[in-house]
């Protein structure tokens, strides 16, 4: 039992469901939802099935490696299936069973939790899936992305890998997890958490972050103009991450927060509109 085993099992299960196994995206993102493999693919009309591991950064969740279950970078296994199959809940449950969880002995609940990402103008309806009180998955029927109504409706299944593995290994501390039989989560991630917490909360230079935000936004505007939607979207992702860092530095006021999110969302909306109207390509 190990994280990499879990990943392999999920990959195997979802590949058998016809999902293409995508490589993780190579930019900092807050969630698997934000990568192009989800964002662009839910917008168009074509069927789509994908599964991938996505390292996800939430700078404000950093705890210097001192908190047993909170980290500034965790890993998600992201699944998108479009259109959503009629028996998707059953497929998802079968997936849990395939991980060796005997659901007869547990309490599995789909607990109301509609998902929304103001930054990318996306929202959906769904649940947080709770297994004996532990949130292991976010399960969402997308309704809108980039401010655009989506159709057919994709279903998004996002597993929190560390959470799920803590459940499987019955561990109370994330750092005690095994990544493989020989390598522990601590070996791989502890130092990283310490250093990045220090960077996120104390060392990131606010002025240059603001400058980065400004430059990326400017670049995005230019690229949108040129119809280069993929790089334009990358610029938006950069803005989003820089925003998260500024937030961790405590440098963003409430209204500024609203304004910056609105700025990113406006560009993402433009990208989505151009993409769906065929004005640019991605």
């Amino acid at each position, binding site marked *: 039992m190990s994280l990499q085993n879990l990943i392999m099992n999920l990959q195997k299960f979802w590949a058998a469901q016809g999902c293409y196994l995508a490589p993780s995206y190579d930019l900092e993102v807050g969630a698997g939802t934000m990568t192009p493999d989800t964002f662009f693919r839910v917008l168009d009309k074509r069927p789509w099935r994908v599964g991938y591991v996505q390292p996800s950064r939430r700078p404000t969740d950093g705890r210097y490696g001192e*908190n*047993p*279950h*909170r980290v500034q970078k965790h890993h998600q296994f992201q699944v998108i299936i479009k*259109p*959503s*199959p*009629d028996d998707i*809940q059953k497929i998802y*449950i079968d997936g849990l069973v395939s991980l060796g969880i005997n*659901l*007869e*002995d*547990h*309490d*599995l*609940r*789909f*607990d*109301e939790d*509609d998902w929304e990402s103001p930054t990318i103008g996306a929202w*959906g*309806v769904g*649940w947080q899936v*709770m*297994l*004996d*009180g*532990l*949130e292991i998955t976010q399960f969402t*029927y997308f*309704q809108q992305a980039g401010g655009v109504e989506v*159709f*057919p*409706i994709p*279903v998004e299944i996002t597993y929190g890998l560390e959470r799920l593995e803590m*459940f499987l290994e*019955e561990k*109370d501390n994330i750092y005690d997890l095994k990544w493989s039989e020989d390598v522990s989560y601590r070996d791989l991630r502890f130092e990283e958490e310490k250093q990045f917490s220090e960077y996120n909360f104390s060392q990131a230079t606010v002025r240059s972050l603001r400058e980065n935000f400004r430059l990326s936004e400017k670049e995005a505007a230019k690229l949108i103009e040129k119809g280069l939607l993929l790089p334009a979207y990358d610029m938006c992702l950069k803005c989003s991450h820089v925003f998260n860092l500024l937030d961790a530095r*405590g*440098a963003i*006021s*409430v*209204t*500024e927060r*609203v*304004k910056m999110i609105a700025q990113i969302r406006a560009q993402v909306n433009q990208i989505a509109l151009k993409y769906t109207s065929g004005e640019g390509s991605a």
Partner: protein
Amino acid sequence: MDFLLEINTEEMPSSHVKMALDDLQEKFRKALAAAKLAVAEFSLYSTSRRLIVVGDIAERQEDREEIVTGPPKAVAFAADGTPTQAAQGFAKSKGIAVGDLQVIKTAKGEYLGFNRVEPGKLASEILSKFIPQVLASMSFPKMMKWGTGSLRFSRPVRNLFCLFGGQPLSFQLEGLASTDFVYGHKLHAPQKLQVKSFAEYRAALRENLVIIDQEERKTIILNQIEARLAPLKAQLYPDPELLDKLSNDVEYPFVFMGSFPEEYLNLPLEILSTAMREGQKLFSVVKEKKQLPFFLGVADAPGDSKGFIQKGNERVLKARLEDAKFFWEQDRKISLKKRAPGLKHVLFQEKLGSYDDKAQRLKKIVAYLCEKAEAKKVEKDAVGAAELCKVDLVTDMVREFPSLQGKVGGLYARAEGLPDAVAQAIYEHYQPQSLDDESPSSLPGALLSLADKLDSIVGVMGVGIQTTGSSDPFGLRRNAHGVCKIILDLPLNISFTRLLDKVFSTYGDKLKRQKKEIVASGRDFFINRLRYIFEKKGFRYDLVNAALNAGIDNIYYSGLRLKALDALVSSPQFEPLILMAKRVNNIITGQPAFAVNAGLFVEKDERELYSIFSIIKQNITPMIGKGDFAQAQKIIFRIQPGLNSFFDHVLVMAEDNKLRRNRLALLQAISKVLLQMADYSQVVVEGEKPTPRKSVPAAS
């Protein structure tokens, strides 16, 4: 015949389920009535995955008879009595033999025609047509689509099952065909079940771990909780909302109990119970108002024989409590006072500055309120609380549990040894959160809450952000309700206009709109809010308008005026007074203002009216000043005989300018005094058409 419909969906939120049941009830009744189908019994059940309609519906519509008329008798038969072309054509068009036609007498004369019996349609045909229409027309607070379908619903509809008279009824809903089976519990008994009646359905589901009655599930939960708590002689920390949610969310409730290490008992009850409720939806267990190291949870499972559910929840809870404990300890390392400058970095509103700016304003407003409310004694505590009340926004605890803002600040203030009154005021300064919530229990808390809410209202209005029916991003309506409730509850006897003025001035030059403009729109906004509050309390809308039209400069007095009016409505003197007041109003409307000259009265009745009015005015002025409207109202009744004789014997619109103006002046003076009580012209009396409302009804 027995009717049963089960709409099987993925898990719906409990608020949606409640609305759906009402919606289904109404739409089914309407559709059945429109189809002229008799229905004897009708009931609804639900789980988070099922909406269930049960009824006893007639097998078919009643036969309908109607008379069909054709050509007039005169045209229908030839002289020899044989049917004409017209008669034959009519018979053919109706598919009936000419011989079967009769002469029918109608009010317009005699016509050729026949009696047609339209046999009632089978209910099954009608039902399979309207059920899909009813389902497709249901609405939810938030709707979704799924797959490639166009149906919008609360959550995806996955199975439709309908029985009518023991037989499956088939219909289609946007491509989904009804089936002849239902499912048991999704996880623990997922098999397909075939049933022939509601009794069978109910029993089969129970056997397969689904209890269809929400109330029964609630009772089961409460009984199991009771059984768990009895040995401990402990109680549940009451949480009716959570109980409702869980009764909806589980199809087969099983209450489990778990514990957590006692070290976490050092955390305040508010924090412990919030940590348990949010996330895992667990109940706290208390004994003599003290938290015990136990919790109760409700699983959707037949049991927990291996203890996995309990252990899993214990592990998750421990992690959450560890977090809360960490925040509780870390946050308190820095005193609120030392933390306060951090508010400079938290923006309240873009154009209105930071929360630090807000705190500085609150200090001034609170000091003003203490002075005006003759509460100098509490000024030090109230101002101290104002300075620190927002500081918990920069604590980790509030970042983790935003619903605890204010409370956390109060708890920290108490823990660091600040005066009790300061801690209490901080703790309760967000109250009341709604009209049903309690106002703060302490005077400093109430004044601080009032100041905070008014500051937000004036500021947001002042930068020109509009609050409309659908858009109220800063919660101004809720804030205004809080303001009114606090003023009425305390009560607070102060000039509201001057208070708005004061709040405006604390903003310095930050507000782009003019003071006059803001105070005026603030006034209108509050009139609407007060109207809403009073009407919600059950007061007659016309009395509310009458009381509010007398001015809202003193909100407390508005309430008293309304109560005085309401108390006198049934008095025999009331209606004549209203009519008289309206008469006075009608005469003086549109007239310029004149001054009374006592020397110019010539008639006995006008002299007498003036003299009784002067006495009444003298008497009631101090009463009105004190807000004793009930007493003043009673005295005002005494003007009526005088007014009566005046109208009977004195011509107001006299030709002589001086006389006329003087008489008008007297009526104006009377009207002015009456208006200090209420705008009687707004009161609707029997036999009179209601006066149109001056403003639109307040939305919530």
